[in-house]
């Protein structure tokens, strides 16, 4: 599913990743750990195709539309409501039965009540929940999750746990996290950056 050979990325003169070889097969869960600034987010952005490698190469053999990428930011319009944001993404991803899918997701992540509220006025945890909805909306086959637990309360954490557990085998996952205890039991591979 994902294969990298000699992968490296520099920002200006700063070298963040270097000479990384990687092979993630379909259905695996790769756990990425490492201290702050070690390049976890950079790696996930490379996998998502948002950044291009400056050395080596990386290949993801899935079309863009089958990937879900959860970043540190929510990647939604602050001035639109939760519903409007998901509706936009639903249209762009050509989600079948958009209304129902969105409704179910909002319900599941506890945002149904706030669906008509401006995202800019969401609390941090609510924004993270919305970002999760956005990522899951189109049922991606590859999920790239950058610190999925951040800002979430206990109940939302178990929701993420469920997402990870239910994907087991059917979906490829790459998870970067500072709280690897939740993820480790499910991981089939682990990558520790330094």
């Amino acid at each position, binding site marked *: 599913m994902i294969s990298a050979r000699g992968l490296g990325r520099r920002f200006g003169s700063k070298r963040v990743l270097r000479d990384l070889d990687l092979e993630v097969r379909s259905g695996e869960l790769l756990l990425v750990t490492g201290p702050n600034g070690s390049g976890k987010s950079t790696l996930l952005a490379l996998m998502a195709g*948002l950044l*291009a490698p400056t050395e080596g190469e990386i290949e993801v053999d899935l079309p863009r*539309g089958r990937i879900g990428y959860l970043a540190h930011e929510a*990647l939604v319009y602050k*001035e639109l409501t939760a519903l409007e944001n998901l509706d*936009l993404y639903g249209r*762009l991803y050509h989600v079948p039965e958009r209304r129902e899918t969105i409704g179910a997701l909002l319900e599941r992540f506890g945002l149904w009540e706030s669906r008509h509220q401006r995202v800019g006025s969401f609390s941090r945890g609510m924004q993270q929940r919305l970002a999760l909805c956005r990522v899951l909306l189109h049922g991606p086959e590859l999920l790239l999750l950058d610190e999925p637990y951040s800002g979430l309360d206990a109940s939302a954490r178990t929701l993420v746990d469920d997402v990870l557990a239910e994907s087991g085998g059917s979906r490829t996952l790459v998870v970067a996290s500072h709280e690897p205890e939740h993820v480790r039991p499910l991981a089939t591979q682990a990558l520790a950056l330094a």
Partner: protein
Amino acid sequence: MTYFADVAALARKDILLELRSRDTLPAMLLFVVSALVVFHFSLPSDASAAASTGLLWIALLFTALLGLGRAFAAEREQRVLDGLVLAPCDRSAIWLAKCLGVLVFLGVAEAVALPAYALFFEPVGWELVAAVVLADLGLAAVGTLLAAMAAASRARELLLPLLFLPLVIPVVVGGVGATVVDDPARYLGFLALYDLIFAILSWASFEYVVAE
């Protein structure tokens, strides 16, 4: 036809955003109206028709610039542009939708500016309207691409006018020419040619501007 469905979804969102936050259009209206007021005060009553047309074109150009400067403001917060780039739609659809949004704003600004111009200065002929429409197309096409470029840079607000003005000088020439000269067809044709060339170029190269 999913391409046009994508464009429609994206353009719809732009209109919605503007209705929600009312950031761009009021500034454009303010600018174009005050520009006309200033010109009204500063042009002597016996100034030639050509002089006031030239001023109108300058006002329109800078109004467009003002609108373009804010075109990607909403996308810059929270990295939404990355979200759109990751969606499976063709990236040029993002450009096309933003273009349509800019065109709507320009259209509204001109729907105010042209009658005001007719009121303050002189009647508006069909060739002026045609030239304005054709010029809008070119300005929106090139401007949207350049606005996306400027948004990716550090000195965005300052950069856009610098990138934009040298590229649109031909539009000004065509627009002024079409309204001043007796035989506007040549100039209108030139504007249409400009639109065609640069719309295709911008359409084709937008992908490289928003994605690595």
